[in-house]
């Protein structure tokens, strides 16, 4: 029994981080993926915030799944998600004011991040608490992993630093475009392209056969 649960958890985790990765498979959460990826430290905080919100929302939705009337479930989910986002926002304002400032409205906008409601609707609503927890952590990690990868290259090429530390050799010229929004588009596009050509054939091709 325990082995089975563990196997299932692993499967859920793998699918959230890679096979059904919210960013490069489902193309969700793109707005913030473009907006907060020019400095690793901001991206890391954003990723952790999202992992927290999606996991806690999933768990809460799962706990309430049998008593929540179906007709009002969206309202309930929005309420739950918004509460956790405000908690994160208050916490950042109190303990990490500079990062809260830098992330600006994007923390509040986690409420509208499709990944979270997507997971609540598609998974937590029909599953027990533990799998929902794993699914939340997995989807959050999948999101954070993509954002951190993009931020790694953007900060490295745009500022010549990693987490604020100089790492590039002396003669390095910063690519200003990497810091600006177009840099995010190029990086995200390149990332999705590389990952998709590495991975197994997508659904579209299978359907064509």
């Amino acid at each position, binding site marked *: 029994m325990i082995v089975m649960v563990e196997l299932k958890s692993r499967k859920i985790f793998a699918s959230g981080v890679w096979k059904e990765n919210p960013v490069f498979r489902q193309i969700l959460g793109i707005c913030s993926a473009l907006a907060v990826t020019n400095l690793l430290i901001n991206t890391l905080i954003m990723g952790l915030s999202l992992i927290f919100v999606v996991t806690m929302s999933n768990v809460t939705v799962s706990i309430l799944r049998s008593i*929540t009337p179906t007709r009002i479930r969206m309202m309930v989910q929005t309420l739950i998600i918004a509460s956790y986002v405000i908690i994160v926002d*208050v916490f950042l*304002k109190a303990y990490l*004011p500079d990062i809260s400032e830098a992330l600006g409205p994007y923390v509040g906008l986690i409420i509208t991040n499709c990944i979270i409601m997507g997971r609540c609707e598609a998974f937590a609503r029909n599953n027990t608490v533990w799998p929902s927890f794993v699914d939340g952590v997995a989807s959050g990690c999948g999101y954070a992993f993509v954002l951190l990868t993009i931020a790694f290259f953007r900060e490295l090429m745009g500022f010549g630093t990693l987490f604020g530390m100089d790492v590039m050799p002396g003669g390095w010229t910063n690519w200003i475009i990497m810091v600006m929004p177009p840099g995010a588009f190029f990086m995200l596009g390149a990332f999705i392209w590389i990952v998709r050509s590495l991975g197994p054939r997508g659904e579209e091709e299978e359907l064509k056969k």
Partner: protein
Amino acid sequence: MIRKRIFSVVYMFLLTFFFTGIVSGIYEINRERIAINEEIKLQKIILKVLGVQVPPGTLDARVRQIFGDRVKRETGQGRTIYRGFAEDGKALIGYVLPLFGPGFWGPIYGMMAIDPQLERVIGIAFYRHNETPGLGGRITEAWFEKQFKGKTLLPPEQEGRYFSFRPPGTAKAQNEVDAITGATGTSKAVERLIDRSLKDYLPWIAEQQAAGRV
């Protein structure tokens, strides 16, 4: 059927009550900390518009100390200004007055520093607003704030404004600055609120000066 509906209403009500309670509680616990952070932020903004260098990463205690040495707060008749002093703590380098007014989406808060003769702008900064990121939100960017630096404060003509916002790239005169592309609403609102704040505060500061209070 009707029982189901009543249940939905009661359920939603209780759930909202529960979550609002938790969120309010967490906010209440952290309120003092947030207030302190806000205060430090305001002090940094005031030092910034006065042109006092505070390197990023300076400890909060140090910011507070610099602020205490170089800035004095003056209030009266519902108005608040800050006097900035040179490094010796004696010579007056300028006055800082608050900028406040409705923006396009919500209130905008800022600070403007002017020289002791009330003739020139030393610096300007906005620190709280709800404008669209990347459009109206660009009022906090360096290029926008820099435009005001060193501008002469010309008393506006009849019904005119202290500063008029011109289409980007066409500002030439001392009282003209570039507006923000794609953010006409915010530009107009900022033009109005700067003018209103200056018209409110300049005569008052002059009055206080004449009375020897500041």
